[in-house]
């Protein structure tokens, strides 16, 4: 092989070592933290089993068609998001730019969540677990007041991890321990991402499969815990009346959309590295169905453990009441038990009601404890950690849980970063002298530096802003433009021809009906409904303020105007690129038509020119 062909092979598009790597990467990207901490919560608040109906309808009519669309165009046009949309129509180039910006912004805060997971993971090796006991105050007279007022778990999360300020305006300082954890998180991401899909493809063998192993272990453990069945019954008992509430349908549609990680450009990037003849229809079904199945599978151990936690809390509540009664009335030690508590209470109430009411006994009801649901970071770092303390062998479970969260998040990070890297590589924005390793390193370093804002005292508030405003409306807008772009600008016939050349058969009626009708309409309805709901809600945030009079309840504060302006900017600037690029191209097209075509005239044979004719 001579030098010329060596050079061209270096420029050749990288490809997956085998199909399994590709599928695992796509599954890993789709299956993320949301499957574990968002879906079970939605299932619970929207009437358990009944929620599955809007969820499955949204999956079939919205999720799968969009997923198929992205995988197909990536595979056929073989470019990252910017290149793909530019090929479909130069007017739509902005869609790719918007996808890239969103991937970048989401990658920033997503890795900060992974940094928090790492912090908890590092602390899971201690005995006793640091979030199980309150620390002692300076003069050793008692426990720290903030911890006593709330709970040790809350204290560890809000004070020892985040060191959160009471207000988003107060930025506080950089918390060095979070900076250290963030640096480790970005280093781990870098080592997997260092050569693009070459290294990602190897890393996903572990990161995409490990969570399933841990979920299974947790499932077995959780089902043997007392109170697990209460939790599961609570989760899955269907409440059909809730299906009338449009909010349920809206949340189901948005959940399936964000869960599949559509419109990030990552899926397009991954499928662009596929060989041309690959059955992307089957890939779609595999990825989509595994993603939803994982959500369901994850909710079982989560809810079993939450049921166990509710039962433990209920038992401690009753036991503390029993202790109060025993001490106040000097009754024999184990005479009052959980079983005869009620009868004892009525007896004592008849004999000495004043004394009983003076004790201020807590009102214990299992339902109340089961209702204490949480999603997001609240589930992982507060509720679940509290449950883990009660389980025998807490350290093991804590370590397993946080490694699982880390690998779930890491495989999603790969998709985010590929959504940034692939378009940049395709646009040849990387200088020739820069090796890929250096470029990926630069991306990681720059992301790390910008993400330092999330390590400030007010970092968590900013992260919530990014989470709600970046990772929601812009994605819906991009997805809508994607589907309109393919159906209107590219043409359904051309697209069906491409699919036929890739999979060997044209897309059947179901897909065509979805792409041309059902999915765009559903997306538009969801987008409009989402915007309407967001606009009606006054933008507020829950702040952790120890000086609040109703502490430990969070103080609900409104966003000030400059913060709210940033929220609006975060929602609109990424999608602004769509109209900006479209308008720019339209203007270019108009001006080109006016000054004459710059394309070469195919009939211009430059060997024969008029001047040479004269000399003869």
């Amino acid at each position: 092989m001579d030098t010329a062909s060596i050079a061209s092979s270096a420029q050749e598009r990288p490809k997956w070592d085998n199909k399994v790597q590709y599928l695992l990467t796509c599954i890993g990207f789709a299956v993320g933290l949301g499957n574990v901490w968002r879906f079970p919560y939605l299932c619970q608040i929207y009437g358990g089993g009944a929620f599955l109906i809007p969820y499955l309808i949204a999956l079939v009519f919205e999720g799968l068609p969009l997923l198929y669309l992205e995988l197909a165009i990536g595979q056929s046009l073989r470019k990252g998001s910017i290149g793909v949309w530019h090929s479909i129509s130069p007017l739509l180039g902005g869609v790719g730019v918007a996808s890239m910006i969103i991937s970048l912004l989401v990658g920033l805060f997503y890795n900060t969540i992974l940094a928090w997971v790492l912090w908890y993971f590092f602390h899971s090796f201690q005995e006793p677990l640091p979030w199980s006991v309150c620390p002692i105050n300076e003069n050793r007279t008692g426990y720290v007041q903030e911890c006593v007022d709330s709970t040790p778990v809350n204290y560890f999360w809000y004070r020892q991890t985040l060191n959160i300020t009471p207000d988003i305006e107060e930025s506080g300082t950089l918390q060095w321990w979070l900076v250290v954890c963030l640096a480790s998180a970005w280093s781990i991401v870098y080592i997997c991402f260092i050569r693009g899909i070459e290294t990602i493809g190897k890393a996903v063998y572990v990161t995409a499969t490990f969570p399933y192993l841990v979920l299974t272990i947790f499932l077995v453990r959780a089902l043997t815990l007392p109170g697990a069945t209460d939790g599961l019954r609570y989760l899955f008992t269907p409440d059909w009346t809730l299906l009338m509430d449009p909010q349920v349908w809206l949340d189901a549609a948005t959940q399936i959309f964000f869960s599949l990680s559509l419109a990030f450009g990552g899926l397009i990037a991954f499928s662009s590295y596929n060989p041309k003849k690959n059955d992307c229809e089957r890939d779609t079904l595999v990825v989509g169905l595994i993603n939803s199945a994982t959500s369901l599978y994850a909710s079982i151990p989560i809810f079993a453990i939450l049921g166990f936690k509710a039962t433990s809390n209920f038992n401690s509540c009753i036991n503390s009441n029993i202790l109060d009664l025993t001490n106040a009335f000097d009754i024999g030690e184990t005479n009052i038990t959980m079983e005869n508590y009620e009868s004892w209470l009525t007896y004592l109430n008849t004999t000495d009601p004043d004394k009983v009411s003076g004790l201020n006994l807590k009102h214990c009801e299992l339902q109340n404890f089961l209702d204490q649901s949480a999603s997001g970071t609240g589930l992982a770092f507060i509720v679940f950690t509290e449950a883990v303390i009660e389980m025998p062998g807490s350290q093991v479970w804590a370590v397993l849980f946080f490694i699982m969260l880390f690998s779930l998040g890491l495989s999603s990070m790969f998709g985010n970063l590929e959504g940034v890297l692939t378009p940049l590589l395709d646009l040849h924005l990387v200088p020739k002298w820069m090796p890929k390793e250096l470029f990926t390193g630069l991306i990681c370093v720059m992301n790390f530096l910008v993400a330092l804002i999330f390590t400030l005292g007010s970092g968590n508030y900013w992260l919530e802003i990014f989470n709600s405003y970046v990772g929601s409306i812009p994605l819906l807008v991009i997805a809508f433009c994607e589907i309109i772009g393919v159906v209107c600008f590219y043409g359904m016939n051309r697209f069906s021809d491409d699919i036929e050349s890739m999979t060997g058969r044209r897309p059947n009626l179901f897909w065509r009906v979805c792409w041309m009708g059902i999915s765009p309409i559903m997306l538009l309805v969801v987008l409009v409904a989402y915007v309407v709901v967001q606009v009606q809600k006054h933008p507020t945030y829950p702040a952790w303020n120890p000086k609040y009079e109703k502490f430990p309840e969070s103080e609900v504060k409104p966003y000030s105007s400059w913060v709210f302006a940033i929220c609006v900017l975060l929602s609109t600037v990424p999608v602004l690129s769509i109209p900006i690029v479209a308008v720019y191209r339209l203007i270019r097209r108009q001006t080109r038509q006016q000054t004459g075509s710059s394309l070469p005239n195919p009939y211009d044979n430059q060997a024969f020119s008029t001047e040479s004719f004269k000399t003869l």
Partner: protein
Amino acid sequence: MLAGVLLLIFLPPLVAKDLCKDSQDGFKVRLSIKTGLGDDAYEWNESEMFLFRSTLAYAMRKHSNQDTYTIDNILVCNDTQRVSFVFVVTSTDDPDQLIPKEQVELAVRQNKHRINNAFLLSDMTLEFMGIPPTLSAPIIYDTEPWLIVFGVVIGAVAVGIVALLMSTVSKKRRAKEKAAGLSEEDEGIVKENGTALSSLGRKEGVYNQAFSNDDRFTKL
């Protein structure tokens, strides 16, 4: 006379009870034996009470450095089913005088762990109402455990990154050498059929004697 003797005999216990019940210097004690020991719980009886009084006397002895305290200095009353009671400490000099509350508190605090151990209980299960338990000192590590785990993880990652970068550099160097080696061979030899002639290493090519220079000017 008999009445006086009887009064003398019965007065101390009556007075003692009064001292104990009405006093401000007494502490209420609560034991949760079944909670603390479960199946190994012992029965609370007079002997256990005797042990309690003697440990308290011991505590008073240690605190005041007087060896004069005996079990009779510890008076107990208000014994309940809960296993809770009130005790007071009388002074060694005057049985009608009580040791003030603060002194007793100090004595108990200093020797709490000995008292706990005598009964196989802990601060949670042997409570002196009004005397807060001394909290154990927070464990101070030389290096926090989390930093150790962090060090391990970041060390492994750094080694991995360096290894990957080195493998890239060596791969590039090997590719460059191969390319350089091939290009040297290209310049030197005019490749004809390949193998036989490349070993000659002559720059000008092969002189084909079928075509000789003598016939340069061909006879037309």
